[in-house]
């Protein structure tokens, strides 16, 4: 069984971004870029399924500029076998990403797609569900536990009220939540080996997908910032403030 893992290159989770002063977007020049944390979890899960003998091959896909190739090498350094870079200059929106992935699925014929639940830059939380819809595959979003046996996936999902476990036949799309696993670090020898693994490039035109954005970004603005209030010296003062000044208790 082949597993396809879409990985997005995003501004690192530890970097605090700034909004461009002309309101046209977010300043990303010279910032540290990394694999979307949920996608690291997705790669880890796929690699574990391979190590467990359930999957035979793990293919990572990234859509974006040439920097994506670094992210794909990172995926291969932790165990992905091969990678596909879909070259796109413009920031591709989730629907276009899902269509590109649909085209890749048609070529690669994976039995399972494991993606992140959300890219931490656009915070869209859409691609996995959209891809499942386009493929007419069942979906299991926000996964915290995945078991594959007998052509079926059993997935525990993190939902607002607690946990829910779904069973579904393969092929299927799974999106990862934070508690699914703890991604490993790449060892130096594996980083070296990853440089020799196959990395193919393809264009949206070759996949016959129109990636023109559907949503227009009118402006990007700074949110209002909370001001730091005051420090209180003890619990008695805190309670006094909450009762008499803030009047919230």
């Amino acid at each position: 069984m082949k597993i396809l893992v879409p990985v997005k290159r995003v501004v690192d989770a530890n970097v605090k971004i700034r909004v461009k002063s002309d309101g046209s977007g977010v300043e990303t020049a010279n910032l540290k870029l990394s694999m979307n944390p949920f996608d690291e979890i997705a790669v880890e899960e796929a690699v574990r399924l391979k190590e467990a003998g359930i999957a035979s091959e793990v293919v990572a896909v990234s859509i974006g500029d040439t920097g994506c190739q670094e992210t794909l090498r990172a995926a291969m350094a932790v165990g992905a076998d091969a990678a596909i870079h879909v070259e796109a200059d413009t920031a591709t929106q989730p629907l276009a990403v899902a269509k590109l992935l649909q085209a890749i699925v048609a070529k690669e014929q994976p039995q399972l797609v494991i993606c992140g639940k959300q890219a931490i830059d656009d915070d869209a939380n859409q691609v996995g569900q959209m891809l499942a819809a386009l493929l007419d595959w069942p979906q299991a979003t926000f996964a915290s536990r995945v078991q594959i046996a007998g052509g079926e996936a059993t997935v525990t999902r993190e939902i607002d009220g607690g946990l829910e476990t779904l069973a579904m036949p393969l092929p299927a799309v799974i999106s990862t939540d934070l508690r699914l696993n703890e991604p490993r670090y790449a060892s130096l020898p594996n980083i070296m080996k990853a440089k020799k693994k196959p990395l193919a490039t393809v264009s949206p035109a070759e996949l016959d997908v129109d990636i023109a954005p559907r949503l227009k970004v009118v402006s990007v603005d700074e949110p209002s910032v909370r001001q730091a209030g005051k420090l209180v010296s003890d619990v008695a003062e805190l309670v006094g403030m909450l009762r008499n000044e803030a009047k919230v208790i």
Partner: protein
Amino acid sequence: MAILVVAEHDNQQLKAATLNTVTAASLVGQDVDLLIAGAQCAEVARQAAQIRGVRKVLHCDAAHYADQTAENLAALILSVSASYSHLFAPASSFGKNVMPRVAARLDVAQVSEITAVEAPNRFVRPIYAGNALATIESDDPVKVVTVRATAFAAAEMGGSASVEPLSASPDVSKVRVVGRELTQSARPELGNAKIVVSGGRGLGNGEQYRALLEPLADRLNAALGASRAAVDAGYVPNDFQVGQTGKVVAPQLYLAVGISGAIQHLAGMKDSKIVVAINKDPDAPIFQVADYGLVADLFEAVPQLTAALAQ
């Protein structure tokens, strides 16, 4: 221009976020319909008919909607979507699961987790963990939108919409729900509680979390929340997590206990009215957003606070 709001419920009760979603939908136009799909959920449809601002309730009752699987709900929504210019749902784990499936089938973009409606085709939504606000315009024929509940007031009750039966779509789901572990709690729901008491890694473990924070929450009639670190370490279940990738809350009072204030955590609580932080590290970033900060050992301060509130 008609707007369909996909209601969230558990076949017995409407979830509160549905009311906030109705308010957001009303900012687009007057003709707001509500879809109640479930199994033996007539009572929910009756409740929904009382929401002010709702024109009619579409009530679809069939066994294969009991579990609210994305596959079946999306198919049902698509069966009525031609009558609507907008399809709205709460940006909860429910809405996030279903709506992108609908959007993809309609070949339209989805606008996720909006915090403002500026025009029928123009919405504001936070990106980068709320560190930027994007104003987005959609020219797609149908706008598929999920709504951040805390950004809109709840619609009021006291209305009297008609309830119309809607025929079910065929059961298309290959998914079976084989288990559910729902957190049982007598406390207010985290998403719409007036007061939230949240604990982080500073609590040390689950026993200490419960021993310190439950009495405080009881005293304040508060919901309990947590940082990711506290959830990852198993102090509390996943549905306690507040933040960029957990729940977004905006209570009157948010008490952050032993939480450092990482950007991902702030993304989920910085719209709270009053924020209190208790942390022994005076440089913890949480103090930069706290209205009242107490630099103290939480193991001393929290019991004192609980006691002081009893007076």
